[in-house]
């Protein structure tokens, strides 16, 4: 051993001296004398002693892990985490630049109260007191609007404050606008929410079908995880079912341009072909599935139907008929049918906003699950349907913590007395404290906040955390800007930068952002991810979670009975080992202990009831995220679950069952194969408004751009919203690229530059506008019509017209 070391050392030394000699001889001998200062100067900052730590990326639901480099209390670099299973060391352009979101010059650093129309700096004490007094005066007229960017402890605290403290269900998150249809799809199909599968599918699939999902720009890391397999010589077939040709289409083997809303008919057509040619999986269906129709009137869970009734229902969706509705050729539809009939290929379906932001969102989610179940393309790695989320913790904080207007933590609901009882016990609050009536969903909540105070059920005070509804709500005039008509309405906004929402805010609270606080996110594949605070927030900015706890404590001081538990202790009571109460409402003392860990461990107790067991906090500290259910093994280790309901992977499946849907809505361990009919969208192009208008995102910017538009590299790459228009249409209207055009719908007007065959290409009669640009807000034009079950609005289709603006 010693010998070997010596030999290595000798070789190293020899190599070094030889190389050094060569370097000397070859490089420096002929060098001209040095004089001029190089362009850019010689004083680039050299920053050694960087401390690196893990965190999930701040942006989308993929949940890439990053390594954040910190020096002297500032983030100086971000790199992909090579130990992370999700991204394996890769990031997208937003992720690499995520560190810069902390350092925009206009960070909010002090609480601001609007006095006589002017935003005036005030103390935190005054801010917290103002909120508590507003709520105390009329708790029923107060609502909390949160987000899938809330960390799990933040969302948990807000949820407990509302449902366990104020006995109010007036809490809903922006995820209602984003993945509510996926939730209702999972619940009605499997009896319990969230994907059963995971991103491992991407490494195993043979065929990827994207249902209205521009994966290359929206989930770029997942996209390259699939397409990079081709560079390794693997065969991957990519089918892009889309309404416009995008960067994703350029990599696809089959680009199928469909008419908006016709996804319903296409899915039914696949089912028809499987039945007609008897290529469906008889074995899978007989063992694991029931059939279900929409019911009369149509309902979320529908009604049981027989196989024959199911066959009858889909019988009209022949390729010829669906070809007329969808614009796909009969050959393309038959290709899809044959694909699902072929059991030798593993097929993964992915979707995100295309299927979720849909007035028939629940229906199309049901149908995509249905064709996978019917064909038996379900359960094996690479073979199954999986929804994606757009926010970092839409799954973790909204679906698992239950911050929707009708849910409780752990997948439970307010209107189930047994669930309410469990929550009341765990929260140690009196029985009956939890209100059994669901609160308003997002669209209704904002409608009630923007209506006159004497309207029935009107809301007076709204607290917004970690989201920007002033830009992201549909039909902004009606659902947001009309607030300005009612001076007695009070809008509280916790945020990190001035936004379209703070424009109308009466009280602004400066918040900590990302690695300025402890946090836990839950990504799209049930992966719970933890990080620690690495840098201090700027100025007087403070954590959202602390803000909620501080308001709760002030309310208790003002005498609100709901802020105490059964034993008269503070609702968020935490104590040290000696039993002494920790003053977590005092910001100076907030980080004396890890409040996040304590809230997370409290929340963890809820997660076993629906078999969504999250891992202990300390296990998450060690891991790059763990996929629930996470169950302790005999040897004391904790094991995550890749595939739920599948024996061998899911610890809750009984031995010998193979596949067991243990939360089945029919109580027989079976999933539901739904029939839902094709229904026309509520607004379609007509003579007055002849175009389809679609909205969405671009790779550079994340949602409303409040963070990414402050990153110079990203803003320069994509500085402005635009309207994408087909070349023929542009010719007909005499519109040139770059020319400002006027876009109108029945709800609003917007002027913005036209871009022909730019980032993507629309078919004739279609327009597309991204929603990231706060100076050109397309949601002035969009429709608030929503899915009857998920209440998620449709941002993807409404009728519009376009005209030139002659200067």
């Amino acid at each position, binding site marked *: 051993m010693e010998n070997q070391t010596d030999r290595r050392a000798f070789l190293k030394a020899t190599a070094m001296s030889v190389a050094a000699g060569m370097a000397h001889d070859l490089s420096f001998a002929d060098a001209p004398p040095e004089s001029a200062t190089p362009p850019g100067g010689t004083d*680039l900052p050299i920053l050694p002693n960087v401390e690196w730590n893990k965190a999930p990326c701040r942006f989308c639901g993929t949940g890439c892990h990053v390594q954040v480099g910190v020096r002297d209390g500032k983030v100086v670099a971000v790199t992909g985490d090579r130990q992370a299973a999700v991204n394996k060391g890769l990031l997208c352009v937003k992720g690499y630049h995520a560190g810069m979101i902390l350092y925009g010059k206009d960070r909010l650093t002090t609480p601001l109260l609007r006095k006589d129309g002017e935003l005036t700096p005030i103390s935190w004490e005054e801010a917290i007191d103002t909120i508590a007094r507003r709520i105390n005066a009329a708790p029923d007229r107060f609502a909390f609007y949160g987000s899938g960017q809330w960390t799990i402890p933040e969302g948990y605290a807000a949820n407990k404050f509302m449902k366990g403290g104020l006995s109010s269900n007036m809490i809903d998150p922006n995820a209602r606008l984003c993945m509510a249809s996926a939730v209702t799809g999972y619940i009605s199909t499997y009896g319990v929410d969230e994907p059963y599968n995971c991103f491992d599918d991407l490494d195993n699939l043979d065929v990827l079908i994207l249902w209205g999902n521009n994966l290359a720009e929206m989930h770029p890391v997942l996209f390259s995880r699939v397409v990079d397999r081709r560079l390794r010589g693997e065969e991957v077939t990519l089918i892009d079912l889309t309404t416009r040709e995008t960067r994703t289409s350029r990599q696809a083997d089959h680009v199928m341009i469909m008419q908006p809303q016709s996804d319903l008919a296409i899915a039914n057509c696949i089912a028809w072909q499987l039945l007609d040619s008897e290529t469906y999986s008889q074995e899978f269906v007989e063992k694991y599935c029931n059939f279900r129709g929409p019911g009369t009137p149509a309902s979320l869970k529908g009604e049981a139907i027989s196989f024959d009734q199911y066959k009858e229902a889909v019988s009209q969706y022949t390729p010829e008929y669906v070809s007329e509705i969808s614009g796909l050729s009969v050959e393309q539809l038959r290709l899809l049918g044959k694909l699902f009939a072929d059991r030798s290929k593993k097929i993964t379906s992915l979707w995100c906003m295309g299927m979720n932001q849909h007035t028939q969102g629940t229906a199309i989610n049901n149908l995509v699950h249905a064709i996978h179940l019917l064909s038996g393309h379900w359960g094996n790695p690479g073979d199954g349907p999986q929804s994606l989320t757009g926010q970092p913790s839409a799954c973790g904080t909204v679906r698992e913590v239950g911050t929707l207007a009708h849910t409780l933590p752990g997948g439970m609901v307010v209107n189930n007395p047994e669930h309410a009882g469990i929550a009341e016990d765990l929260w140690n609050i009196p029985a009956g404290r939890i209100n059994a009536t669901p609160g308003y969903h997002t669209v209704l909540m904002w409608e009630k906040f923007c209506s006159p105070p004497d309207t029935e059920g009107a809301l007076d005070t709204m607290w917004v955390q970690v989201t920007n509804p002033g830009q992201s709500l549909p039909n902004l005039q009606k659902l947001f800007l009309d607030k300005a008509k009612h001076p007695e309405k009070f809008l509280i906004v916790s945020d990190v930068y001035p936004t379209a929402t703070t424009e109308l805010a009466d009280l602004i609270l400066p918040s900590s952002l990302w690695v300025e606080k402890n946090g836990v996110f839950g990504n799209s594949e049930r992966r719970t991810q933890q990080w620690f605070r690495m840098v201090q927030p700027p100025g007087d900015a403070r954590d959202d979670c602390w803000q909620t706890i501080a308001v709760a404590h002030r309310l208790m001081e003002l005498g609100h009975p709901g802020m105490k538990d059964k034993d008269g202790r503070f609702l968020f009571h935490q104590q040290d080992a000696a039993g002494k109460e920790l003053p977590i409402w005092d910001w100076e003392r907030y980080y004396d202990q890890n409040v996040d860990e304590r809230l997370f461990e409290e929340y963890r107790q809820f997660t076993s009831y629906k078999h969504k067991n999250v891992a202990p906090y300390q296990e998450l500290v060690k891991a790059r995220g763990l996929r629930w259910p996470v169950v302790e093994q005999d040897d004391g280790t904790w094991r995550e679950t890749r595939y739920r309901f599948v024996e061998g992977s899911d610890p809750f499946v009984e031995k010998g069952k193979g596949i067991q849907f243990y939360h089945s809505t029919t109580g027989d361990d079976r999933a539901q194969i739904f029939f839902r009919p094709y229904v026309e969208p509520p607004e379609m192009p007509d003579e007055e408004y002849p175009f389809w208008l679609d909205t969405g995102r671009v790779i550079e910017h994340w949602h409303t751009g409040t963070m990414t538009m402050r990153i110079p590299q990203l803003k*320069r790459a994509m500085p402005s919203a635009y309207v994408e228009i087909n070349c023929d249409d542009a010719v007909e209207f005499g519109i040139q690229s770059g020319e400002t055009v006027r876009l109108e719908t029945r709800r609003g007007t917007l002027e913005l530059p036209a871009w022909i065959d730019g980032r993507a290409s629309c078919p004739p009669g279609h327009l597309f506008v991204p929603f990231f640009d706060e100076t050109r807000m397309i949601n002035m034009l969009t429709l608030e019509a929503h899915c009857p079950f998920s209440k998620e609005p449709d941002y993807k289709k409404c009728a519009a017209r376009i005209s030139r603006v002659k200067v």
Partner: protein
Amino acid sequence: MPEHSPPVTARRSLSLFGAIVLGMALVGYLLGILKGYTEVPVSARRIDNSHLTARTNVQPAASYSAMHTSHFSPNSDRSSHLKDLKYQRPSRLDPVTRTHVMKLAAIADRAVNRAFDGAPPVIPHKIEQQSANSCLACHGQGMKLGERIATKISHPHFSSCTQCHVEATSSGPFETAGETPNSFVGLSRSGTRAFERAPPTIPHTTWLRDDCMSCHGTIARQGLRTTHPWFTNCTQCHAPSAALDQLSPQAAAVIDDADAALVNTPIITPR
């Protein structure tokens, strides 16, 4: 009158017809040229699609007269002269001149396109928006045209280029971004040497930088080029850092390196 001899009037009208055709062609040509020189705004010229009826992704061709000013391609703003357009690939054996000033200049030039050391560089030219594959036309093997260098892709097994690289300035037909005030200061590093004249250690991660020749080869910024391109086994003398490469902390620990402070510790204690 012999039957096979054409009448004079017929011949005359034939000549007249020919003259008219020639005249019209000449007038049309001149008008065409004149029209070509009409000053039209750049954006209008780029998308003057009015003669097109079928849907197409192809940029319309400019008239011959307008060709010298037309914008054809993403790189059309890189004006070049034919004499510069020789394919240039210096030989490995060509002598390399590199000074410390040139090296600093190259590092500074490199920093212009990056938010910090390790950030994916932004693209200093226009790109074809929809097809990432077009990147590899130049960056697949790297090329040098005049003074312009298209560096070879350093991670050929990841080629979804626009996932990480965006245009430095948008090529979209709209106003460019105004100020984006941001006080972020990015990491920047230099390598260390055990002693003067010792081969420097590799000061950056080799993750996504599989091919040293991308930045240090014959087609590279002069100041970053290796002075000895004929030695191809770079890591024989230049040590990478397990810490920077996020290998296991154990692997990093055995490397006596100034970068040991960068060890990828996964956990810090809560504060």
